[in-house]
């Protein structure tokens, strides 16, 4: 029903009747209410006084508003440190992955060498391997290096690029005209100079997409940090809040304040770079 109505709406006005516009809006608003409710409730609870949190019927809007939960949350957990850890790890991994994937993708896209197809398909097939299959031996490896609870444990295994990133850039590099590369070769450019001076500047959209994709991956990564990080001050934001378990049982005001803290950085990044996010997502999502 609504599908066929909206189709006609989206592609020139066959039925511009008000009733189906109204129906679209109705569904959109109900959807928005359901999606936004947890965010609203997170914020509302975080601003309530402890006594009002368990009020029944619940208060929709906090009255009076208090910031006490926000003060308490940072005395219980070092959120600034979590953020710092996350940023540090993310920067290293982003630089590492973008460089490795660019170099690798250029070789796969533009150079002829024995085993090219075989290596590429083997590399790509690792995408199907569940994370847990690699986590168990990687944990043992990291432990034998004595890297548990260090930045190295978080950064090094993710530094060398991914099959997905290499694939994404390879597809993009195919679209760069061969003549540009030939001309550069005639000018005596070496491979690295071609990559850094010609390919990379031309690939800004693809590199931005990859950068955002990597950022979101690192930001959300849960299982690996959970496995290799024990101490609270080494945690990233993605696992930082797990320390609340046991520390502030049922103190939902403080927990929700903590949740708001973890949301702020990415929401800000998202609002400022929304265009790149959507472009990056469509690019990474479709290939």
């Amino acid at each position, binding site marked *: 029903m*609504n*599908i*066929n*109505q*909206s189709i006609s*709406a989206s*592609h*020139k006005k*066959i039925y511009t009747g008000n009733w189906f516009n109204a129906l*679209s809006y109705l*569904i*959109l608003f109900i*959807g*928005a209410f*359901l*999606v936004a409710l947890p*965010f609203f409730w*997170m914020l509302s609870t975080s601003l309530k006084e402890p006594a009002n949190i368990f009020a*029944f*019927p619940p208060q929709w809007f906090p009255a009076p508003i208090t910031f006490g939960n926000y003060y308490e949350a940072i005395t219980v957990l070092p959120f600034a440190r979590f953020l710092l850890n996350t940023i540090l790890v993310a920067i290293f991994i982003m630089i590492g992955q973008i*460089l490795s994937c660019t170099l*690798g993708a250029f*070789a*796969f896209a533009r*150079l002829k*060498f024995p085993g090219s197809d075989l*290596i590429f398909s083997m*590399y790509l097939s*690792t995408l*199907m391997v*569940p*994370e*847990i*299959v*690699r*986590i*168990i*031996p990687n*944990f*043992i490896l990291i432990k034998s290096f004595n890297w548990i609870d260090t930045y190295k444990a978080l950064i090094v295994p993710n530094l*060398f*690029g991914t*099959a997905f990133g290499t694939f994404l850039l390879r597809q993009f590099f195919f679209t760069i005209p061969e003549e540009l590369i030939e001309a550069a070769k005639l000018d005596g450019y070496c491979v690295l100079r071609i*990559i850094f001076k010609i390919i990379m500047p031309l690939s800004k959209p693809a590199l931005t997409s990859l950068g955002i994709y990597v950022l979101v991956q690192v930001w959300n990564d*849960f*299982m690996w940090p*959970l496995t290799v990080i024990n101490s609270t001050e080494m945690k990233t934001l*993605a*696992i*930082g809040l*797990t320390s609340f378990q046991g520390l502030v049982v049922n103190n939902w005001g403080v927990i*929700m304040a*903590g949740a708001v803290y973890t949301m702020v950085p*990415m929401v800000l990044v*998202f609002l400022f770079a*929304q265009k790149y*996010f959507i472009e990056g*997502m469509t690019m990474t*999502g*479709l290939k």
Partner: protein
Amino acid sequence: MKVQYNKHETLSAYLLLSPVMVGFLVFGLLPIIASLLLSFTKWDLFSAPQWIGITNFVEIFRDKLVWLSLWNTIFFVLLNVPLGGVIIPLTLAILVNQKIKGVNFFRTIYFLPAITLSVSAGFVWSWMYNPEFGIINYIFSLLHLPAQRWLLSPKIALISLIIVNIWKWAGYNMIIFLAALKGIPNNYYEAARIDGANSWQIFKKITLPMLLPTIFFVVVISVIGSFQFFDLVYIMTQGGPGDATMVYNLYIYQNAFKFSRMGYAAALAWVLFVLIFFITLTQMKLSKERISYEY
């Protein structure tokens, strides 16, 4: 015809590939092989690993929790993939693809859960699901619906988790569908309209077929992801109440890092790998028969 390789070019290719290949070999291929070897051992990380042949795999067949967690996982996949992967995201994508006011606002709202950390999402939903003081039961009471025990009820705990998971990822998939919708050439629609097709026919004969590759892509990715469902269940229920939300990936994780049964966990992980491999292969085969990728 034999391809001639330029020595210099081959050398530079291998040099350029060395960073990704180090990552691939050391943190990709090596662990996969190590996992396979581990799966034939008994190892608690403290004493030396013991080679025990196929004992772990025999135990997997006898382990009731394996079957239960596998069933829970399949239940999760069967609800999550159609609803959270295709139906809801596609409906939303079609709605926000209209030229009406405020679509950007809705797109942003729908996308927000995707950049919300699982921990934060898990905590806020646990609080909303609270049977006594939770906002959801309060809203239910306003609508004259019976109160539920949500995460505390063995019957609906898993469904409660699926709802959270759909909430978290529907907007992400919506964006993928939105891009695909925008990629359909407008003259297809114009031609159909000139031929007098109605909206339903246009959806069935143009939009849906054109979207099939994207639907297929989303389904494959969602199936692989759903079989590895972990973050929310780890945060919200740890498999409980009882074993009502014990999913396969959580069971592997607990065996490895809670019970220190590295060998058994590796065997379980390899079974998951093989399972995902064959399911994905089957999907690819089916899609080759049904979907034509030519636009």
